[in-house]
């Protein structure tokens, strides 16, 4: 076990997979010598060179499309979209090509491509650099979607993503790169569709995505001090979604709170809530509650930005209401 940063865990996963399989390569903006905007690919260009760590022109559609074409013909590309907000430009290749080529070809195509990106607010990056858009890609059949919250998870899930023969949208969080955590020294993989129970509890279930896992854990601390035992679950992948683990928890607690940074409206939380309601109707004591991003663009000034994404205090307050 070592304590490493999330960004290092990303890099280690990439490095290990590139060493293991020469078909794996990276392409994206400024991922080479520059090491990526959040330094998650630092050091890889030095080891693997221009050929396998490829800086591209500023062309997200071509980055994504070239990755699809390479994946169709025997390579295993990891394409980086610098900010998830820019996925707008690459979305045709992701949602209309990568997601559908296997199906449209009657099962012929294998498309082992990973679209790595990062999302999230909290750096005063304003409306076009802070969105969390996982709902867009989760909606499209044929795409898997991962949102790792810890160094351990990001490494294990990224390695799995690279070995998967389906296209994966792999969503990191810009404020997690500097988070440290324990990561085994030996190799490990984390299968998709397995939620992590981050904290056990009996009174209330919080399902949290990405950085909200950390805030949920903080809220659970606060609530524990007031005698409320919260179970915190991180689905880790939303497609496939490990509903079973969430249901097992809700059957125990009878109360569900869902939290993500993405806009509340038409977000992933609505799907999770709907599925839980469909499956655990009898055991729910209260309607599931969503504490998610407000339905406004992300503002620049920190005081407003903090207001539009959920904070620990919002979770604590909502949890208490659910307990009433």
């Amino acid at each position, binding site marked *: 076990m070592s304590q490493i940063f999330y960004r290092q865990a990303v890099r280690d996963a990439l490095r290990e997979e590139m060493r293991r399989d020469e078909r794996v*390569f990276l392409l994206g903006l400024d991922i080479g010598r520059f090491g990526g905007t959040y330094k998650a690919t630092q050091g890889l260009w030095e080891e693997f060179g221009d*050929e396998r760590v*490829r800086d*591209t*022109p500023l*062309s*997200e*559609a*071509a*980055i*994504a*499309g*070239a*990755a*699809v*074409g*390479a*994946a*169709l*013909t*025997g*390579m295993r*590309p990891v394409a980086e979209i610098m900010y998830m907000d820019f996925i707008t430009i690459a979305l*045709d*290749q992701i949602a*209309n*090509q990568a997601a559908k*080529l*296997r*199906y*449209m*070809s*009657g*099962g*012929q*195509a*294998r498309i082992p491509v990973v679209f790595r990106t990062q999302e999230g607010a909290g750096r005063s990056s304003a409306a076009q650099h802070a969105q969390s858009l996982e709902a867009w890609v989760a909606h499209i*059949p*044929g795409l898997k979607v991962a949102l790792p919250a810890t160094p351990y998870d990001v490494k294990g899930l990224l390695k799995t993503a690279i070995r*998967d*023969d*389906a296209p994966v949208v792999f969503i990191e969080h810009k404020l997690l790169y500097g988070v440290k955590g324990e990561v085994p020294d030996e190799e490990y993989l984390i299968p998709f569709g397995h939620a992590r129970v981050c904290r056990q509890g009996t009174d209330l279930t919080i399902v949290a995505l990405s950085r909200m896992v950390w805030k949920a854990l903080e809220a659970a601390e606060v609530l524990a001090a007031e005698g409320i035992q919260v179970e915190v679950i991180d689905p880790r992948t939303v497609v496939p979604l490990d509903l079973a683990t969430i249901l097992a928890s809700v059957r125990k607690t009878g109360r569900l709170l869902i939290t993500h940074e993405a806009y509340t409206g038409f977000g992933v939380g609505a799907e999770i809530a709907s599925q839980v309601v469909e499956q655990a109707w009898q055991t729910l004591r209260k309607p599931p509650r969503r504490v998610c991003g407000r339905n406004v663009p992300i503002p620049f000034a920190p005081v407003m930005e903090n207001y539009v994404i959920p904070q620990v205090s919002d979770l604590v307050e909502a949890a208490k209401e659910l307990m009433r």
Partner: protein
Amino acid sequence: MSVTPQSSPAALAALPRNLLERLYRTMVRIRLFEQKALELFLAGELPGFLHSCLGQEAVAAGVCAALREDDYITSTHRGHGHVLAKGLAMDRMMAELYGKTTGYCKGKGGSMHIADFSCGVLGANGIVAAGLPIATGAALSAQMRRSGQVVAAFFGDGATSQGAFHEAVNLAAVWKLPVVYVCENNHYAVSTPLERQMRIASVSERAAAYGIPGITVDGNDVVAVYQAAGDLIERARRGEGPALLECRTYRWLGHYVGDPATYRPPEELAWWKSRDPLLIFERRLLQEADFSEQELALVRREASDELEAAVDFARRSPAPRPEDALEDVWP
């Protein structure tokens, strides 16, 4: 822009006999397949819609004859010609048009999505220009695997107004990838004529923006297409990078079957029909090479036998079950 003139009799005569026959056979197969598809569609036998490439046969035939078997192509909504030329069989194509389980895509893709990875056909595409970035990626893969493969990406004049065209060609130019971008300039994107799509006379002028060769050829002259494509494909194979090949041609029918194409002057269609790529080539094979009418008739009969068997195969093939729709999403 450099313009290759219509090929000379000497150019044609210099080509190997079996290549000339192959070019002819391919064009005949496309012509007959498209005529039959049209007929079946109008008879209500085929679901969906149909984009006919009648009149454009020489482009697909010329380009694909210059490719190796393991080379790749990406195709378009108007793609039957491309994939037939690359070597697909009529029976499984026809079955796909019928939406049958024996089709190349098990009835999931239909006319606009025919693919056969084993033949290097990376797929027709319903999104205009979306095949270009994919072609760029396949060329990247070929370069990285040092496989010596080349990619030919087919697309229309309209597609060159898409951002994806620009990004894909630029990326290939920067990385010197082995890909030839083949524009089938049929002078219209649906109803929109060339001069309302761009303020230049030739699509190949766009090559200047990427520092790559741009060539315009007579797309109804299969020999000219073959030679220009061959030069650019071999150039790409040598590692000298991508190129843009514009083939000037015309679609005989409307954008899709059912479009009366009233936006085109009748004399324009008449002029292009007088330059029927198949008839021109047929005449030249008789006059400039030593083909006999019998030989050509045999090729036509073989193609028409293949076609008849294909329709029969398609009709007799089983339809998918509804639940088959749930398969093939995930590997």
